[in-house]
């Protein structure tokens, strides 16, 4: 029985629509409804008025966010960290994937992958505990070792300048196993014949890696990097919050937009400021993803997000 028209089709396929309903309802509730709350960024929130009853205050919240210097600092931190993560993590993961594929035997590869994947499975809370174990001024292992060789202990948790390095290393540590699997899969797909031809032509193994493996990985890298760039203004809240905590001394070099928004909401209860910063991040993020996707489309249409 064929039914025509919008509602006709809907009725005919009501089971399918019902099957979609839970997910649709979920995203309406938790993703689309909150979008209406963006108005909070333009209001002076008070408890009695709620979201829709509070008075408007134009762009005051934004002005406060920018004029206080916070906007620049957290934006800069977020972007710079993400750039560093993208570069360092991908280089290490590619290197690891190449060595895992080319240089080591099967059992060693499986065993070492088990080790490499370990950090991915633990929560950032546990990573925070490990960091504490290593970096604590009085009892941390790092200072124990420094003192053992006669050097001065370092006060990691009070020195902002160490943290960019620390956080980049921690990020690499946590994602190495996961990322190298992606590249390993890509390497596995490269055609054998190219290598054989190169070897016959006299290329040594390093030349073969440089001239065949890397260029063949390039499409994968480009896409992953571009998509990561699209998210350049989104910080990993879990990492920053558990590594740095509420240690205000370190904020100048470690505070990202996400932690700033969180603290403004929960600690200082500055709803308007928090909402403004959040909106700022959403808009920036949206713009960069669109740009990144446009770039990917130009490069290779199939791999674009949309």
């Amino acid at each position: 029985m064929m039914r025509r028209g919008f509602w006709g089709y809907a009725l005919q396929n009501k089971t399918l629509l019902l099957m979609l309903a839970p997910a649709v309802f979920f995203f309406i509730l938790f993703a689309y409804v909150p979008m209406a709350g963006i108005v909070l960024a333009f209001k002076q929130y008070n408890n009695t008025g709620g979201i829709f009853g509070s008075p408007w205050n134009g762009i005051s919240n934004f002005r406060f966010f920018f004029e206080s210097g916070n906007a620049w600092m957290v934006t800069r931190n977020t972007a710079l960290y993400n750039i560093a993560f993208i570069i360092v993590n991908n280089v290490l993961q590619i290197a690891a994937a190449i060595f895992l594929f080319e240089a080591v035997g099967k059992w060693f590869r499986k065993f070492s992958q088990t080790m490499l994947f370990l950090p991915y499975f633990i929560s950032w809370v546990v990573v925070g505990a490990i960091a504490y174990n290593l970096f604590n001024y009085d009892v941390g292992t790092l200072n124990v070792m420094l003192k053992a060789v006669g050097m001065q202990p370092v006060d990691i948790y009070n020195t902002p300048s160490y943290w960019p390095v620390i956080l980049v290393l921690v990020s690499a540590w946590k994602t190495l196993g996961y990322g190298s699997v992606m590249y390993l899969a890509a390497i596995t797909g490269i055609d054998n014949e190219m290598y054989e031809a190169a070897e016959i032509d006299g290329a040594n193994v390093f030349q073969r890696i440089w001239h065949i493996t890397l260029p063949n990985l390039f499409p994968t890298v480009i896409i992953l990097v571009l998509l990561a760039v699209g998210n350049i203004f989104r910080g990993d809240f879990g990492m920053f919050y558990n590594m740095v905590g509420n240690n205000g001394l370190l904020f100048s070099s470690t505070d990202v937009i996400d932690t700033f928004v969180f603290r403004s909401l929960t600690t200082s209860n500055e709803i308007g400021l928090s909402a403004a910063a959040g909106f700022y991040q959403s808009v920036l993020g949206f713009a960069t993803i669109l740009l990144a996707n446009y770039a990917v489309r130009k490069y290779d249409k199939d791999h674009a997000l949309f």
Partner: protein
Amino acid sequence: MSAIAQTGKSGVKRQTDIILLRVIGYIFISLLAVICFIPFLLVVSSSLSQESSIVEKGYQLIPAVWSTEAYSMLFKYPEQMLRAYGVTIAVTAIGTLVGLFVTAMTAYVLQRKDFRWRNQFAFFFFFTTLFSGGLVPWYMLIVTYLDLKDKLIVLILPMLLNVFYIIVMKTFMSSIPEAITESAKIDGAGDFRIFVQLILPLSKPVLATIGLFIALAYWNDWYNALLFVSDEKLMPLQYYLYKMLGNMDGMRKAMIASGAVVTTNIPTESLKMAMTIVATGPILLAYPFIQRYFVQGLTLGAVKG
């Protein structure tokens, strides 16, 4: 073995570069593997060290003075910890089952080529990954308007579905031949029945992989508790660990809440590490068995996606 490092075709002269590659490779990978593993050893060792030796000499790779006092204290007053375990297990079990089912169901409909509106719905879901209202409206929705604070469901519901997982499942399911659905329809089966009785059994690999990812996310979640839970009886495992690590007060309170007497001497430093091990323990135990599935799933996903 590998494609690049095949020997034998060009004779002995070529051996040296391959040997060099292997040497560098083994050293590099070994270093990485050690760096990944050693922190865990450190935590285990620290948890088994005597508190006074930690205070005096710090956390060591091998305990200066062995002691199980931290674990003794944890297991002597285990109430809070057991409760945290209970919360986490319940949340993970329910969340994974429900989330996995809804994800699969949604993915199935989206990949049905005969469904006229699949692209529109796909965009509807996908758009949520591009733009969001931010933390504040989401927080206010859950706390003020839905009033979910300090209820078990708040640890399950907000992170139930993930668009990325829906897409992965959709990709996998689209490789299941349409003929199966078509012939079932001819036999008179309804869409839901087709999904449950035919598609799900055929999707076991992707269900296992995504299921593991979802379960891991729930097990490790502390963010929802941080935002929405202040009731001590409702704290999940990682959040409980977070509170203990935060400060001595947190630890003291937790121990007292479990029955320790106020004046008891708490081995704070080793206790932090012991608690860390206990909070991660099950994951680390299950890890060798499930790591294989993660790698397989990721590899498949990378190839297809």
